[in-house]
């Protein structure tokens, strides 16, 4: 019952007029940036960090949570109405959703996505409510060695899951970790990898890297591809779902929810795998297989629920272990650090207002999104019609503004440009950018835990293998790294 009491307390925080206002602003902003191509929730939170510095942390995180959930809703609207899918987790939604919209069934497609997202988001938030305190309790037993092993495991799984190839994922991750090494070492005050530039002593801010990779890199990428004009499907006919649509949607919603949450909650994260699996399952279970490939409503309902459910799951390792497994979670961790807070098991004791206010606001935000989304769909369509030259011009103006206002430094703008070019090449050559962001924020923490463990053991590296839990986690990391290779060799030997 302690959890329910805590949750009730959370609602008393989230339901104050002021925090309701921040939640509303968050979901509105989140949906808008989710709808707009070229910007997402990670970039938005990064841009807001410099200006929310003076805000009360609880209110800021309630707004960030709204942006996080809102981005998911907005992303699905774009993938249904536009012929170019946005973020990778909504690619699957765009397959059937776009076909439905072309056939004039855009309304029901949007409705099943929105209601499915609401149901998945709510059930997954309930799961988060009860799972998170349990995980936090368990994590209290973790020492530096366990944390180090957990981060190494997370590094390998994140690299394997986010992207198409393990070496490319690892390259991205290591690039991020390497950037994270720049600056003064916190334990010995040695300057490392600063190239003699004084501004580099403070290290490279994660905000600059996120803005560089997501805003500047993305703008370069879109600008240099000669694509045909985008067509926006209009929402014709009834927006409401028919009785048959309901009958065909509710099971995929629940199955998608059940698939998404565990995937999100694992320290590997990744919203794509559960959406692909949900699509495959719905295709097999449907009573109308002939409609798949021509706009089947199950193909929108299932993956969309899985996507949102995974998004809630990602908050479990973030809040209880301080382990981000998506770019947005990584930037939220940076936000915690900005306020001098360290997510982890102790956060539930030291800042119950913040943690439970945040969790309660997820319920609130989800409900707001359901109410907001369908009636306002006309407004979102208008947003899609902003001419690209002005949209991307505006994105870059705000990107450079956000970067400059961090430290009022021109060196930061130069770093932004360089990181932007790297991000552009990564997009162009199919290297995932999210692992770089995770590596940048988690790398220094990983080093800290490693050195803490080693100073406990007087420099003996065997400490990581003596503790059964850390040894087990490291073994799992090895399996993720070389397992696929061994599997291939074994199959080749058989053939």
């Amino acid at each position: 019952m302690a959890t329910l009491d805590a949750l009730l307390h959370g609602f008393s925080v989230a339901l104050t007029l002021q925090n309701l206002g921040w939640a509303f602003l968050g979901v509105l902003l989140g949906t808008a940036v989710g709808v707009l191509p070229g910007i997402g929730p990670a970039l938005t939170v990064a841009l807001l960090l410099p200006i929310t510095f003076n805000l009360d942390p609880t209110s800021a995180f309630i707004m960030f949570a709204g942006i996080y959930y809102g981005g998911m809703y907005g992303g699905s609207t774009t993938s249904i109405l536009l012929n170019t899918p946005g973020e990778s987790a909504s690619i699957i939604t765009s397959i059937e959703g776009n076909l439905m919209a072309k056939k004039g069934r855009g309304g029901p497609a949007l409705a099943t996505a929105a209601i499915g997202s609401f149901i998945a988001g709510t059930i997954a938030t309930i799961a988060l409510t009860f799972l998170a305190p349990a995980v936090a309790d368990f994590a209290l037993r973790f020492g530096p060695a366990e944390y180090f092993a957990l981060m190494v495991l997370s590094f390998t799984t994140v690299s394997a899951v986010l992207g198409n190839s393990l070496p490319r994922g690892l390259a991205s991750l290591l690039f991020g970790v390497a950037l994270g090494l720049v600056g003064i070492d916190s334990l010995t005050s040695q300057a490392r990898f600063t190239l003699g530039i004084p501004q580099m002593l403070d290290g490279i801010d994660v905000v600059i890297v996120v803005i560089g990779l997501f805003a500047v890199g993305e703008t370069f990428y879109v600008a240099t591809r000669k694509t045909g004009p985008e067509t926006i499907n209009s929402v014709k006919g009834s927006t409401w779902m028919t009785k048959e649509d309901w009958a065909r949607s509710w099971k995929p919603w629940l199955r998608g929810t059940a698939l998404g949450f565990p995937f999100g909650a694992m320290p590997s994260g990744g919203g794509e795998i559960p959406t692909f699996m949900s699509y495959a399952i719905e295709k097999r279970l449907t009573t109308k297989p002939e409609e798949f490939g021509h706009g089947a409503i199950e193909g929108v309902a299932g993956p969309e629920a899985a996507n949102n459910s995974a998004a809630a799951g990602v908050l479990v390792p973030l809040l209880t272990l301080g382990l981000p497994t998506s770019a947005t979670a990584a930037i939220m961790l940076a936000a915690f650090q900005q306020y001098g807070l360290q997510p982890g098991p102790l956060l539930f004791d030291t800042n119950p207002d913040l943690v439970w206010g945040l969790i309660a606001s997820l319920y609130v935000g989800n409900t707001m999104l359901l109410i907001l989304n369908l009636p306002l769909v006309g407004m979102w369509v208008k947003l899609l019609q902003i001419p690209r030259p002005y949209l991307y011009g505006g994105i870059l103006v705000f990107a450079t503004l956000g970067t400059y206002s961090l430290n009022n430094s021109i060196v930061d703008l130069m770093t932004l440009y360089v990181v932007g070019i790297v991000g552009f090449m990564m997009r162009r050559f199919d290297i995932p950018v999210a692992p770089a962001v995770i590596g940048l924020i988690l790398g220094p923490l990983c080093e800290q835990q490693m050195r803490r463990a080693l100073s406990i053991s007087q420099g003996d590296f065997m400490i990581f293998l003596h503790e059964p839990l850390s040894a087990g986690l490291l073994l799992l990391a090895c399996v993720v790294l070389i397992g696929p290779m061994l599997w291939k060799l074994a199959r080749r030997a058989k053939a």
Partner: protein
Amino acid sequence: MSDSPSLEGRTRHSFWRGEILLSLGVIALGIFYVIGTIAIPTSSSGYSRVSPADFPWGISIALIVIGVFLLREALSGKWVGEGALADAPAFTIVPFLWISVGLILQIILMERAGFVIAATALFACTAYGFGARNWLFVLLIGLVICLATYLGFSYGLDVGLPGGVLEGVI
């Protein structure tokens, strides 16, 4: 990857393609970090057993190893970026140059001419790179957006931005 057979016939082959250059870049970054790691003084006081160079050593070596794996992926044709796909949208470098001009102008002008002028230049160059051709209109829209942003941030959010030559006027 299982989809590699379907890439047959869709790819253009040249040795100096981006995939190979990027792999070499990762190896070069690793070597750069090895040099940087050697340069870290490892003092013998306090945390002597855990030197600030230990973790960087691991990362530098990992970078080189992964670079070699990437190179293998690139050479074997398993790694094919968009640039090498014949059916991908055509690539055009001109917008990249325009946006770069905008970003560099912003860097040069930010503290000399102020945020409004620097950001308007960036907006206009980016919009031009994206195909807007009416310079006057683009500059006007950019100016309105940047001026409004400047005023909003300076007076509404209390975030100080460089006023530059317009200092005192607005």
